[in-house]
């Protein structure tokens, strides 16, 4: 009788074994019949219209997938390239930009919208007037906040936009602005469909323009399940050539170890933001490929400058001296970052290498604190979000490190954290003492680091986390963009950097290298230095030799 039982055992193990080995086949050569691509993304987008946001997660998900811009940025050449405008010119005084628009560009057809005409100048006016014209029916829809545009004072710059004829638009500026074209090439300056806007107004559901998007881009939105996935299907009539893949899925996976695990086991084909600690493992895995880019980003500890004791310069400088940036680069970035001594990375042409450094000196820090009247230290909180960003792979860990470092000079730190969307929401109330955040540049222009982070306008629109602004600094920013002379601009930016170094509204910490990791079989995915991942040209290549041991 025990024999029968034993027999039952043996017979049940065999099928299990077969199934297991069968499954091994399925994953180790990855020859899925389904020609789609799965991208492991690090979070939910908070909207489907990049005009409304500056967070990388949202722009990654939407900007290059769903939309196009008037002009695009060519990362290889470092220049502005044609987008929906195939040609343009600027007049002699630099205040009038003329754009010649492409013909036969169609918008998405969906189960919620059927376009009757192709793209033309009306759509350009619609997309930009929404932002600058307070009377525009869509200006206040979905909150009325256009953070990037507000921080560069877009509506203040433009005096009018004129439709000359259906395929020609002129934009008139009030003052010369050398960063204007670069701003039109950013992730945020997408072109929407006016016809869609009018249809939605008729249906009395205008907010759908941002949640059920229609654009001219290579993919259209098929479905979105919050915290789970976004499904895109290819736009068969895309003007630059339809994507070859059958579907594109964004698998929303906040934890980096999960993303890498999915990548290695075949549930994902491309992954965002690998942690620097995982890079070695990724390099060793022959079915994966690691792409590296130098980082046009910065992570910083911003003070709530209005809140005592952070309104005292000595306190801020004491904290700056107490932070060991090198240790942070080692522990949090595993060495794949450079210590930041200013907001600008050394790559930028406006970088100032003559700034006085706040070297790591706990003794000096304690002394400064005592001079400020805090010889017994004090309590403060650091807000850190539990998500990965390009500029910071692990804010919580960074906060813990800083907590330990500040403890040495007598400051007791509490770490406060919320889920990313809740976090961003709560920041606008300025309840924090300090917060760990950062910035990834949208274009190569140094202005992109200054106005969105420090201007009084960005204090209104939400990019300025220091709760402080200085009109004299604002004037410097405006002067800098009024010229195209690089030497002149460099000079002004050097002055601005020096001023920021003295005022220290935030402490820059590190510039991170950018990574993207994908399966070797996926091609057509360049790593863009200025954010915004694009799947337009992605495709899967059949591997001829997928066995281990082959290079």
């Amino acid at each position: 009788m025990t024999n029968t039982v034993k027999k039952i055992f043996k017979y049940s193990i065999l099928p299990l074994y077969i199934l297991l080995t069968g499954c091994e086949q399925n994953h180790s050569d990855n020859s899925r019949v389904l020609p789609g691509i799965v991208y492991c993304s690090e979070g939910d987008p908070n909207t489907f219209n990049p005009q409304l946001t500056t967070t990388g997660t949202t722009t990654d998900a939407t900007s290059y997938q769903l939309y196009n811009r008037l002009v695009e940025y060519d990362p290889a050449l470092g220049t502005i390239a044609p987008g929906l405008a195939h040609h343009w010119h600027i007049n002699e005084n630099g205040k009038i930009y003329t754009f010649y628009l492409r013909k036969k560009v169609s918008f998405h057809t969906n189960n919620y919208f059927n376009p009757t005409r192709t793209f033309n100048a009306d759509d350009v006016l619609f997309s930009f007037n929404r932002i600058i014209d307070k009377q525009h029916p869509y200006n206040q829809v979905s909150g009325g906040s256009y953070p990037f545009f507000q921080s560069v004072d877009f509506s203040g710059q433009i005096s009018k936009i004129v439709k000359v004829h259906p395929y020609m638009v002129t934009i008139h500026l009030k003052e010369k602005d050398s960063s204007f074209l670069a701003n039109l090439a950013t992730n945020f300056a997408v072109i929407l469909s006016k016809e869609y806007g009018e249809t939605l107004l008729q249906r009395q559901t205008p907010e759908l323009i941002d949640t059920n998007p229609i654009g001219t881009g290579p993919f259209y939105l098929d479905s979105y399940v919050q915290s789970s996935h976004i499904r895109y299907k290819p736009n068969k009539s895309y003007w630059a050539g339809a994507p070859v893949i059958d579907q594109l899925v964004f698998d929303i996976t906040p934890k980096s170890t999960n993303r890498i695990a999915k990548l290695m086991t075949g549930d994902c084909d491309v992954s965002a933001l690998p942690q620097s600690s995982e890079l070695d493992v990724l390099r060793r895995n022959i079915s994966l490929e690691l792409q590296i880019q130098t980082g046009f980003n910065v992570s910083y500890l911003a003070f709530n400058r209005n809140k005592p004791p952070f309104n005292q310069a000595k306190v801020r400088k004491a904290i700056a001296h107490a932070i060991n940036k090198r240790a942070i680069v080692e522990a949090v970035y595993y060495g794949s970052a450079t210590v930041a001594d200013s907001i600008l990375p050394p790559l930028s042409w406006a970088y100032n290498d003559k700034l006085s450094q706040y070297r790591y000196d706990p003794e000096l820090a304690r002394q400064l604190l005592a001079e400020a009247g805090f010889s017994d230290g004090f309590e403060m909180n650091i807000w850190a979000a539990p998500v990965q960003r390009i500029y910071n792979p692990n804010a919580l860990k960074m906060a813990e490190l800083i907590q330990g470092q500040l403890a040495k000079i007598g400051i007791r730190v509490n770490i406060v954290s919320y889920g990313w969307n809740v976090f961003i929401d709560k920041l606008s109330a300025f309840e924090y003492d300090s917060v760990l955040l950062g910035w990834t540049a949208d274009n190569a222009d140094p202005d992109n680091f200054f106005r969105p982070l420090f201007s009084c306008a960005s204090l209104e629109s939400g990019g300025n986390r220091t709760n402080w602004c200085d009109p004299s600094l604002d004037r410097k920013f405006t002067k800098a963009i009024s010229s195209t002379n690089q030497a002149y601009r460099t000079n002004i930016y050097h002055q601005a950097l020096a001023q920021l170094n003295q005022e220290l509204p935030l402490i820059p910490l590190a510039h991170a290298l950018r990574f993207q990791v994908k399966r070797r079989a996926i091609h057509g995915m360049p790593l863009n230095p200025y954010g915004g991942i694009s799947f337009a040209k992605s495709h899967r290549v059949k591997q001829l030799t997928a066995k281990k041991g082959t290079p």
Partner: protein
Amino acid sequence: MARANSIYQEESIPSPIQQIWRYFISYPVAVIGLWVFVILLIAAVIAPFIAPYSPHFQHTDALLLPPSWHPDGQVAYFLGTDDLGRDIFSNLLYGVRTTFGSSMLVTLIAAFFGIILGILSGMSKGLKSSILNHILDATLAIPSLLLAIVLVAISGQSLTNVMMAVCIALIPQFMRATHTAVQYELPREYVVAAKLDGANQVQVFFHVILPNILNALVVQTTLAISVAIIDIATLGFLRIGVPAPTSEWGTMLADGVDLIFIAPWNVTIPGLAIFVSVLAINLVGYGLQRAVKEGLG
């Protein structure tokens, strides 16, 4: 034991406790379990004195060191370090207090209340018993995890909340075990005999029932300790437990998952610690169960 210098050979019959102990010792696995248990208890007490480093101190020059038997490891950091340079061995030792120590404390408190309530419900009859039973069933259905979720939702993360949640979740188990044991004893002949003798409820309980259910209670307590350890570690793993920085085994394991590619020992070592302590307790419990059965026939 016979004394050499006495005339009479004394026969001393070992008391039930001694009998149980003798049977217990004869199971080697149970004795091993008991040894480990005692070592853990001692470690919990003397942890601050024998730990080589302060558990939260970040050694920035010694990040992610593997355990000392690995070629890259150092003896100074015996079990290696985590990604902030904290010594794993010291954290493990302090974790004995957090995970193991609090489970002991929680079990004792739960046992105290649970047994008293179980006795009250077991000895009572009628409506009072019914009501207590229904409340018991309702609370039995709520696992400690859900209770912890409730407490954390209400008053945030803290060790106290975790301990309260696990404690409250354990009480019904003790209640039910005691209740069943008492109900089993009540119809016995010797209880009836005592009552006929004129003993009141209290006397019946203390002199007749209690000695007979003591063994079941002890066994239940040891089982409860292992449940408490796993519960506390689980809550720590899910990060519903003590906030950072903390030396709790479950939380250490969760932190280790982030390093799973480069430092897998951060996952294995705390896991082993939990496993070994729970196994030890279970072995002791198993040994006790058998010893009680053999000892009291």
